[in-house]
């Protein structure tokens, strides 16, 4: 048997330590070791974005990161997007715009959209579509997702004004 790695990370603002096998992906560690099942597995090969998390300020497919590689990293998952009982504007906009049907793509999309709006306050429709092109959704046709991100961008700017 292989030895396990001792990994120290910060997840959603809290210090978290865990042991993982060398072959376990970050997605697997989050879901199976830490019980953070909000990040989803749609493909396990970097092509659907359902497993999107923010790692040291960048969005990554957590299925393509090894758990061991996350040592020392600061990670935000879908579980860390709301502030306590207050939903993030992106989450609220997804609900108000009916931007989810089955909802399995939703965690990844919300994490990706939050990162977008932190990087760019007023992205164009083209820019939103380009940024979210890593995240597949089979149910919605994306129309309402794009509108939700536009709404959240608008609301976040109002607040910052």
């Amino acid at each position, binding site marked *: 048997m292989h030895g396990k790695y001792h990994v120290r990370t910060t997840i959603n603002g809290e210090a978290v330590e865990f042991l993982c*096998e060398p*072959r376990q992906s970050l997605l697997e560690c989050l*879901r199976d070791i830490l*019980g*953070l*099942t*909000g*990040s*989803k*597995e*749609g*493909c*396990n*090969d970097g*092509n*659907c974005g*359902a497993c999107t998390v923010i790692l040291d300020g960048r969005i990554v497919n957590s299925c393509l990161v090894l758990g061991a590689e996350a040592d020392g990293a600061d990670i935000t*998952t*879908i*579980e860390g*997007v*709301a502030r306590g009982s207050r*939903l993030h504007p992106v*989450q609220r906009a*997804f*609900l*108000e*715009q*009916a931007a*989810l*049907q*089955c*909802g*399995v*793509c*939703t*965690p990844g999309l*919300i994490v990706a959209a939050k990162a977008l709006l932190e990087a760019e306050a007023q992205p164009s*429709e083209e820019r*939103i*579509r*380009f940024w*979210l*092109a*890593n*995240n*597949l*959704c*089979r*149910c*919605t*046709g*994306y*129309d*309402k*997702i*794009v509108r939700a991100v536009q709404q959240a961008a608008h609301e976040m700017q109002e607040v910052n004004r």
Partner: protein
Amino acid sequence: MSAPAYQVVGTRPIRHDGADKVTGRALYGADLELAGLLHGFVLRCPHAHARLRRIDTSKAEAFPGVKAVVTAADFPPSGDRMVDLGEGETPLSYIRGNVLASGKALYCGHAVAAVAAVNVHVAEEAAGLIEVDYEVLPHVTTALDAMREDAPLVHEELRTKEFGAPGSRPSNVAEHFRHEMGEVERGFAEAEVIVEREFHTSTVHQGYIEPHNATALWNNDGRVLIWCSTQGSFVVRDTTACILDLPVSQVKVTPLEIGGGFGGKIPVYLEPVAALLSKKSGRPVKIVMSRKDVFEGTGPTPGSFIRVKIGARRDGTITAAEAYLAYEAGAYPGAMVASGAMTVFAAYHLPNVRIDGFDVCVNKPSTAAYRAPGATNAAFATESVMDELAENLNVDPLDFRLKNAAREGARRADGVKYRRIGCVEVIEAMKNSEHYRSALNGPHRGRGVAIGYWFNVGLASSCTISVNEDGTVNLVEGSTDIGGTRTSVAMQAAEVLGIAAEDVHPVVADTDSVGYTAVTGGSRVTFATGWAAYEAAQDVVRQMRERAARLWDVDPDAVEAVRGQYRAGSHRATFRALAAQLNRTGGPVVGRATVNPKGAGGSFSGVICDVEVDPETGKTTILRFTSIQDAGKAIHPAYVEGQMQGGSVQGIGWALNEEYYMTAEGTMANASFLDYRIPTCYDLPMIETIIVEVPNPGHPFGVRGVGEANIVPPPAALANAIYRAAGVRMRRLPMNPAAVMEAIWAAAK
């Protein structure tokens, strides 16, 4: 008569499961964790067609961490019989054989054995140690090849059912049927213009983002407990019980949240396997498919060959139509060609029709439903031919369709006589749309239109509603919620009770806790389960009137209930006030209903799309896209729009990009989301929607169901648009850049 004014129906409340789904809390099948949980891995056949000479599992069983290994030999010897699991009579051997192959593996991806171990990596490693002695057999992967005399046989014992009677020669054609009406030859003789064309469509997958999964615990009391993502928890219960030879009451299925289905999560693949592994290991076992497993091991929708011939007079009246539909069933009979035949000319009122359908087995995964199954293939052919006819007749393509549109009272070739339908209204809405009236300018650009139909279904649904003291209610139903149906069902109860949608708390229950409810499919949930909620709410209202009568000491018949206001003479009380007094007036109130409604109303839809085709690369860019659909009554318009947009984009993917790319060995070359590329948001514009409402007389609120018809027109509409943009008629799906380029080169020769 003006439309009735509703308070809840037609509004856009936030869905009840919304907070759970935007925070990551919602529990999907793969998220389940149980004490002692083992993880399963399914070994799949790497060949398109192979005899299983011998399977040796001893090395896998001896591998450290492995707790159980199963093959088809572990199924109880229940023999073969016909079973009806909601989709008509099927031999049990087919259903069981698709879950774990015995004798022969019929496609690449066919499950042959499974392992349960302490984790999935160990299970996968151990599965690699299972020795299967395959005798590779010749294979066949398209309908036309499989219909040849000398084709390899998928099932040696299969005989063609020819017009209902069993044949005598071995064949891959499971069935040939015909619908005929009028005098087809005379009709074509009367025609002044005839167009006859052949079409090919590729196998495509539903492509839901959540892979199939199942967890099973064969409990020590003999009951089998299952948790899974499914479109029908009762189908899983009944199928699993059948395969394991148990009474249905010994199986309990708890549906967890489901990450998309589109028809593909109706069949059962993993549950009986997980149950067998649990029985052998004494522990709960979870199996989750990989994306490759999903593509190779679950049912896509049939590829097809279709020939359509339509004749018309110069004045635009269609005189006759003929269709030949050969659909690939995949490994087991059941290619959805019946619904292809029901829908191929469904939009038109035709005097003389002949439709031949062929259900053809090939060495590909056993096909499953995909959103209006069979109809999209057929409409691609019909609506392309209609476009060519309109061009030959020099009439507007929508005017041509309108002139021949099906109306109430029209009879289809398969015998159905239409009740009130919205075909004409949909075409008129297309004609009157801002999109259709606007000009499209610029080189290499073109506009296409097409229409489509899906009949929708009713089937059984159950619902109970219990009243809380605070004036809210809990609603229990059995339809797994894929696209927000908890809310569209709850809204119908809220409308009857005169309370807010938010004051109904809907729950999708397990099979022990709710009456039998058929699958989430056929666009039926908002229609039929909504109707059950409507009836259960009526039952609550009746009981609440009795409670008010008791309080006021009047006859229950004297109590009026209007939108949550109860009154008799000078007495007045709200629903909430009465709810607060339940204990004083006799205790809890529970309303219940079961329905099996017959009046499902078919839905028509249309598409207008503008494209630009790059003459250098053949790539089609969608500039503008409008989906138009008759919802009957839109209970929650935002989710109706969502269905239309989602179906449209699946249709776009089917049209432009998606296909099972088969190798010469009969294996799928592109079983990943990298190579089987479904549309991303960067590929698309906004999808505009126009909801038409022609109420279904067969439903209390006029609901028709909107999940499916919207996928039907896009491929034809895109083909028609590409023709106007690039001058080439595309008659094979997908119309990817290479295919369009080849067509452009061929036309230039």
